[in-house]
């Protein structure tokens, strides 16, 4: 398994239990969805799987590494080398062009500028934006911005891409195009996606769905 989470508990300082023993497993090359109502704990689960936050109890193994045991200072390297992120909106750095946004993780990997830009260009071609390399985010449509975000998430060749409501700010037609891009990446590259959503259209595009309620996984479909 690429991702194994066991009995995750997250209690916030005010005593709110966002996760209450959630467990899941994701294999390589899967497009897995997490669905649930607002406040069910799905965003907290994604933050913990994305090494942005730590669980109060339980453990997460990602690509063979038990990330919950790692020191705080080791987590940026895990995010950089093993993970990619796509958020609902405002994903991109507004002062950087599409090409520079995609190349950003490679800068943190300390690659040389020429290599960064070459790889970023290739990734933008993969998501169908070869003609928008030098556009700023404000010059791109919502769908194009999300494709740039996917290209950026892909560029460091991560084991897992975490997408939090990636279609939340898109119209239905554009959302379908984005989902079809994600499906193509799963099929052609064996890319693994974990998508947090409450959009049934997204749910239909997933290989499997985890339903969440009150911080627990209640069903798998």
């Amino acid at each position, binding site marked *: 398994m690429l991702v194994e989470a066991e009995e995750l508990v997250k209690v916030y300082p005010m005593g709110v239990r966002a996760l209450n023993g959630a467990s899941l497993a994701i294999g390589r090359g899967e497009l897995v969805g997490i669905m649930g109502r607002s406040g069910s704990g799905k965003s907290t689960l994604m*933050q913990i799987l*994305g090494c*942005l*936050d730590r669980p109060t109890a339980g453990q997460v193994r990602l690509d063979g590494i038990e990330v919950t045991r790692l020191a705080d*200072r080791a987590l*940026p*390297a895990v*995010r*950089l*080398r093993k993970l*990619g*992120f796509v*958020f609902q909106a*405002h*994903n*991109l*750095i*507004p*002062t*950087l062009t599409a090409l*520079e946004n995609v190349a*950003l*993780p490679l800068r*943190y*990997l300390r690659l040389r500028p020429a290599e960064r830009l070459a790889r970023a260009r290739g990734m933008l071609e993969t998501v169908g934006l070869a003609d928008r390399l030098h556009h700023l985010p404000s010059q791109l449509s919502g769908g194009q911005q999300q494709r740039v975000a996917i290209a*950026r*998430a892909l560029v*460091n060749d991560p084991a897992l891409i975490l997408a939090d409501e990636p279609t939340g700010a898109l119209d239905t037609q554009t959302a379908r195009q984005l989902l079809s891009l994600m499906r193509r990446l799963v099929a052609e590259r064996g890319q693994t996606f974990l998508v947090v959503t409450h959009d049934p259209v997204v749910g239909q595009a997933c290989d499997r769905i985890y339903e969440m309620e009150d911080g627990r996984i209640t069903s798998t479909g």
Partner: protein
Amino acid sequence: MEVLRNLYRRRTRTVLTVLGIAVGIFAFTVMGAMAEKFNRIIHGGEAYFQRRIAVHSTGGLLRLNLLRPVDIDIMRSTPGIRHVETQVMLALDETAGFELAPRFLVGIDLPNFARAQLLGGEAARLHLQRGTWWQPGEEGVAVLGSAVARKMKLDVGDFLEARGRKFRVMGVLQETLSLPDGWALVPEDEARALLLESSPLLRALALERFWTNAYALIDPTDGNRLTDQLAHSLQRGYLLHSPEQLAKATDQASTLLNTAIMGSGAIAVIVGALSVINTMFIAVGERTREIGIKKAIGATRWDILREFLGESSLIGLMGGLLGVVLGAVLTSSMNRWAAGQGTPVFLLTDRLVVAAMGFAMLLGALAGLLPALRAARMDPVQSLREL
């Protein structure tokens, strides 16, 4: 590039912040150039007195401030004193009022002066920029310091009119940026005659030979010993300054002056730095989500810290550059004006330019440190909640 674009994105704020630093660095540069000029004058004097014991009469009876041949003989016969340089010094123009670089007629005996030049050390030597020295015995001749030549618009072949006499200009000295720039060197006998003409008392005393200043030329290491010895052997009524005492006094004066002038310039820069802190805190607040995204995709604390420090340092650098350029424009135009009055007031040295630029950048970086640390320590989860 990203740093530049971030600054451009908030260009009005950036321009205002850069101006804040620029005003401070401008003040620092102008005041620093003034301090450098005074330092050069002070250290020029220090170099001049490195191998000299200055002997001044405190006046005694009638407060005439003069040295007589008997005093010079005592100095000359003291073992360890290699030569005694004598001068008759008087104001070149008594009607001139306050002058930034006071002008003096300095009467010298050419062979006596030449020997003092030889023994006084290279740092204290006066060089001709153009023209020649006069020959011993020549009368009505002068060699001018650079500031006198410039202020009175005189050159070789022209006539210097001073205290009712005319002196043909034989030569002009190289600029020393120190006191000799304000001197007009003339034959000693003529300076003495002018002094006598202006003083009925001196005429009544029927003094034939006297001087206003005398300098004992010595080896620098002998300064204190010979000063003590001269203090004993000369009659009362003389003030002696050893090279060590003068060096100490000039160092103290220089330190005090530098602290006062540069300190007030530094305060102006620090006020500018406060505007950088403010601007950078606003920038961090506005870019919270950006910071969250960057952290999510793998940026370390150091990556974020470096980015914001880069921006504040660049603001400092731009402010420094603008401030130094404005300072250079003002000091050079003030100098052009002051040159007509005698001596430039400002001296913009390389080390001052480097110090001003370095200071601006360092303050920019320091001012950016707190906001940058706040950005670097942001929790990515909290940051990503910002829209």
